[in-house]
């Protein structure tokens, strides 16, 4: 059973639009949710992360919205740029030093 789910599988937006990526999880003990982005043939890089003490985390054009009751979160990319085109992975962990459980990813394409 997939513990971390992502949707949609792929997403195309125009430059300047807002891209919305969804993530849900099963295990209520998860308390750390990072988003990584990965460009082709490169390693995943930490983009932004949230802990359940907050329901929103913002970093520039990237915002995580978190709903603990529904076990859902979303990543909003405002004013999307062609350089944002990548695969975005939602992940979860329940403790420092423990495994990150990754979702299957959302591939975002931003058209100029």
């Amino acid at each position, binding site marked *: 059973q997939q513990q971390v789910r992502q949707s949609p599988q792929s997403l195309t937006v125009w430059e300047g639009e807002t891209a919305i990526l969804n993530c849900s999880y099963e295990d209520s003990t998860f308390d*750390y949710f*990072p988003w*990584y982005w990965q460009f082709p043939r*490169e*390693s*995943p*890089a*930490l983009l932004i*992360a949230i802990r359940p003490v907050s329901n929103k985390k913002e970093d520039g054009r990237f915002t995580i919205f978190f709903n603990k009751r529904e076990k859902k979160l979303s990543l909003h990319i405002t004013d999307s740029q062609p350089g944002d085109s990548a695969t975005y*992975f939602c992940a979860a*962990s329940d403790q*420092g*030093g*423990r*495994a*990150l*459980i*990754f*979702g*299957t*990813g959302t591939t975002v394409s931003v058209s100029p």
Partner: protein
Amino acid sequence: GPKVLQIPSHQIIDMGQMVTLNCDPVSNHLYFYWYKQILGQQMEFLVNFYNGKVMEKSKLFKDQFSVERPDGSYFTLKIQPTALEDSAVYFCASSPTGQGYEQYFGPGTRLTVL
């Protein structure tokens, strides 16, 4: 940001041979991890390592896999013997402390088993 290094970047071997993947984690990090990524799929956790010991491992971490970090040198993943299904990109990651949720990934080693 912090840099994790991996050697080699690409390794091609015949099925049944042994392979060792090397990782140079960030210098002050204490937790080390290996993840496996098959082309087009997500990273899947294999194992984590702290204070000279395996802390947890997944079902993907078969008996043919082993990890070690002798005397603070490279953190290594050894596969002996290799199988065709071991072909993947293997990412090493490290994080700073017990509260260090942030994991930083290396560039990966692409392993091809023929």
